[in-house]
């Protein structure tokens, strides 16, 4: 099972001056896993994720993503990951089709591939024929589903999801998670950062960051058992209470 690791981090650290944003974190994420990356505001989630995405160089420690080293091969990393955030993902003033063309284009898909992928994606989301609709005119839930599908259009090894499902209704939200499950069943690893605990319960394994360190890492069920509580919220509250710093 050693070779199915798509993310490995060993003593990964990031310092800004005297401030240690990420403090010697170590973890592995397996192929097809849905990995939850939790923490309060300012716990160091974003900094850690930036290092893994190849956007920021670590101060020390080792990490590889999709088999590539975060120090030297960040260009290859970027080609093999997808990224989606609730805040920014799609261009509201472009149509669905134009957004797909753009993102597929920047990941270097050929015109033929783009066309196939586009048809496939529109069919799967049951929005074929709406290609010329402006993204701005879509309901929020559709935007999120579309954004996720576009984030994995180049079939990346890992997709990073930054608080993906804020503000949508519970049914749409489950449709969204179904897409993630489907991608995961197809071998794509999902790395989800969030501070919504109910989102955490959908993950296979969850890590909780407090003050730059990973304080707990296990399946949600085990975490709930160990902290003798019935929700991830309970787990999180017990851990985050220890936090000394905030943003």
């Amino acid at each position, binding site marked *: 099972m050693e070779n199915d690791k798509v993310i490995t981090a060993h003593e990964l650290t990031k310092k800004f001056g005297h401030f240690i944003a990420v403090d010697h974190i170590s973890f592995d994420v397996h192929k097809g896993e849905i990995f939850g990356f939790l923490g309060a505001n300012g716990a160091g989630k974003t900094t850690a994720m930036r290092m893994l995405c190849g956007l920021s160089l670590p101060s020390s420690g080792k990490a590889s993503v999709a088999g590539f080293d975060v120090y030297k091969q960040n260009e290859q990393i970027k080609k093999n990951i997808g990224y989606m955030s609730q805040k920014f993902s799609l261009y509201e003033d472009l149509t669905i089709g134009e957004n797909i063309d753009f993102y597929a284009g920047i990941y270097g898909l050929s015109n033929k591939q783009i066309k196939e992928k586009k048809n496939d994606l529109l069919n799967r989301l049951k929005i074929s024929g709406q290609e010329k609709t402006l993204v701005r005119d879509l309901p929020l839930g559709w935007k999120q589903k579309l954004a996720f599908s576009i984030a994995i259009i180049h079939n990346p090894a890992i997709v990073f999801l930054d608080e993906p499902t804020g503000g949508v209704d*519970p049914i749409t939200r489950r449709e969204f998670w179904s897409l993630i*499950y489907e991608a995961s069943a197809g071998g794509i690893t999902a790395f989800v950062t969030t501070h919504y605990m109910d989102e955490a319960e959908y993950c296979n394994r969850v890590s909780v960051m407090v003050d730059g360190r990973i304080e707990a890492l296990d*399946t949600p069920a085990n975490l709930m058992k160990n902290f003798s509580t019935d929700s991830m919220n309970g787990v999180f509250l017990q851990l985050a209470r220890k936090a000394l710093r905030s943003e």
Partner: protein
Amino acid sequence: MQSVIVENIIKNYRTKKETVEALKGISFSVDKGEIFGLIGPDGAGKTSIFRILTTLLLADSGAATVDGFDVVKDYKKIRNRVGYMPGRFSLYQDLSVQENLEFFAAIFNTTIRENYNLIKDIYQQIEPFKTRKAGQLSGGMKQKLALSCALIHKPSVLFLDEPTTGVDAVSRKEFWEMLHRLKMEGITILVSTPYMDEASLCDRVALMQKGVIMTINTPAGIISGFKKPIWAMRSSEMYRLMNAVKEDETVESCFPFGQYQHIVFKNPGNDEQRLQEIARKGNFTQVEIQSIRPNIEDCFMALMQQ
């Protein structure tokens, strides 16, 4: 006595291309000293209701009163006596914590000292950072400052539009504790949230969706309205299990809930055997099946499908 009365409010937004029906005839009332929750996703119409009640927006039809005053005719009186915390924390990012609070106190013709008692608990938590600019505060601290600013003139009704969105779990918990202390002071609180789990913290809630209130009740009342038995099931392969359950014709709904699938049957009876059969047919491993009590989110989804 009723602090807020809303009667058949309709609000449409017209753009060049289309008309969006934001509120399709909303009615409810809130008792004095009650914590009333408007619960629903983005686009449910929560913000429109708040803006109409705080006199920022005119309804197309219908009537509403706050503290006995009409939201159209007596808007000046209402503006003197309500506290409002809009969706995005309305703070001046380039002013310090203290400068923000002083400013909001002054525009309501009061001082920090005059109503310090009311905000003491909340403000003390951010007082160590009082010279820091609001833009540099964490989400939780911004939220506390915005609440302090909304409370500084001792309002009789407090309108909080999604105060916990984007705030971490610890701050959310503390925030709700603060709201319960304010309730003790006799302040009526209208709060909106997209998080179903916060419903249980309100005295009564309205579940909203696309401009319509689906139901109004106490949290317990809403849960007891869910009549059918509900089952939780899990296995090692969640995605395959979900598809297998959904394919079964006797299943009414199957929704993933974290580690489990929540399942309801069309004609409840021998539900458990049926689920075991699905598990056996699909060769699922580590199967777990249990009967559970529904939560607010189960109820919300059931109402959405009606």
